[in-house]
């Protein structure tokens, strides 16, 4: 088995890289894929919190690199899903504790046992980014429909294109607010896609449920009712090659329209 190594990156901080990582990883694991997530944000780890695994971490990626433990020992199994593992970042060290070569080596070793290796990249374009990208052959660029996030995404895309190892990259548009787009106060999905001219792999609506799910340490894809959860699930399905249409995020007006939309949505989903 040779797993796919996908780096999840954005340039700008706070656009939802780690949330995306936790949700795509969980969704893929729910589909029966063996998934390992690597948090490379040394010194600022957060993926463990989003997965509710913060109390189970014994060894980190730095311990693996400095040979204080075996790679297998450092993998933390998810509470619910045995297919899902986390290789946590060290909280007490900085980005120089792991090199590009070492990360590449870890990815190569994990490829033998897992279908997917999702690398959570730190914000910025410095060494932390270079490290995270080193072992990957695919990338998901997370951005939001805001100027600063799009500009940073453009920088990241430029850097990814210059990397020979990165064979493909896809755009994930996060925190989309349909009502703002409708009132012409937010760039639309089409605007962003056109400006960045990249292929889209997902559109995730802004969802307050993300906050509560982070509070609980449980990714929102576990919540069947959540629209954001559904959108993340669709991203996972697209990753494994399914052809899934993008969700219609336009909020219907009025109660009757909502009811109608709900039923037509159900029919649409079954088809």
């Amino acid at each position, binding site marked *: 088995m040779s797993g796919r190594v996908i780096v999840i990156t954005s340039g700008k901080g706070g656009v939802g890289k780690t949330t995306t990582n936790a949700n795509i990883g969980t969704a893929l694991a729910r589909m029966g894929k063996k998934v390992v997530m690597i948090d490379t944000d040394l010194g600022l780890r957060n993926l463990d919190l989003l997965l509710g695994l913060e109390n189970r971490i014994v060894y980190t990626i730095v311990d693996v690199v400095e040979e204080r433990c075996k790679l297998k020992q450092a993998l933390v199994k998810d509470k619910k899903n045995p297919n899902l593992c986390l290789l946590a970042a060290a909280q007490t060290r900085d980005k120089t504790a792991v090199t590009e070569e070492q990360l590449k080596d870890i990815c190569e070793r994990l490829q033998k046992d897992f279908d997917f290796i999702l690398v959570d990249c730190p914000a910025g374009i410095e060494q932390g980014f270079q490290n995270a990208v080193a072992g990957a052959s695919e990338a998901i660029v997370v951005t939001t429909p805001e*100027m600063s996030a799009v*500009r940073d995404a453009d920088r990241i895309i430029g850097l990814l294109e210059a990397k020979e190892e990165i064979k493909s990259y896809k755009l994930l548009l996060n925190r989309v607010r349909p009502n703002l787009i409708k009132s012409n106060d937010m760039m639309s999905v089409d605007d962003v896609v056109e400006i960045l001219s990249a292929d889209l792999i997902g559109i995730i609506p802004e969802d307050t449920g993300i906050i509560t799910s982070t509070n609980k340490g449980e990714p929102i894809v576990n919540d069947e009712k959540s629209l954001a959860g559904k959108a993340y699930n669709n991203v996972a399905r697209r990753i494994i090659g399914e052809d899934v249409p993008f969700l219609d995020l336009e909020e219907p007006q009025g109660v009757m329209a909502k009811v109608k939309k709900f039923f037509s949505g159900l029919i649409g989903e079954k088809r």
Partner: protein
Amino acid sequence: MILQNFYNKIIGFFRQTDTEVEESSKDTARNRLRVVLMQDRTNLTPELMERMRKEMVELLSRYVEMDKEALELNLEQDGEQVALMLSIPVIRAKDEEEIKATLAEEDAKKAKEAEEAEESEESEDTDETEEKEETEEVQEEESSEEEIFELTEEKTEKEPPKEQKLKEEK
């Protein structure tokens, strides 16, 4: 009720004019982004833009007298595309004599510079190659003079326009 109606009408009136006058904030964002990404992607730093501006001034002032300080060179949003906009406030079009004079001056300057460059090169070179280079030099000068003469004839036939906007679409 009447008061409320009145209020709504006033509000409605202001809203209408708002949407008519201003572009939506989304369009502003999109257009600003296009320009900024253009700059990001092309490595055209402010210093390079300034240099380009200066070179433009130098080149164009051979043919027209213009307000050098007011010359603007910017990347701008032009409909769906980003354009390189050059706006030149022309004071006066130069006449044929003047243009010829400035070109001749430029030409002399260039020839002098070339000579100096040759001299400095020659001092580094060995004696054997010296003679050859000298003959080449003479030939080059002759041909360049001819070219420039042709150019002046072409240019002087047309009157330069008062306000020129050059576009280079990318």
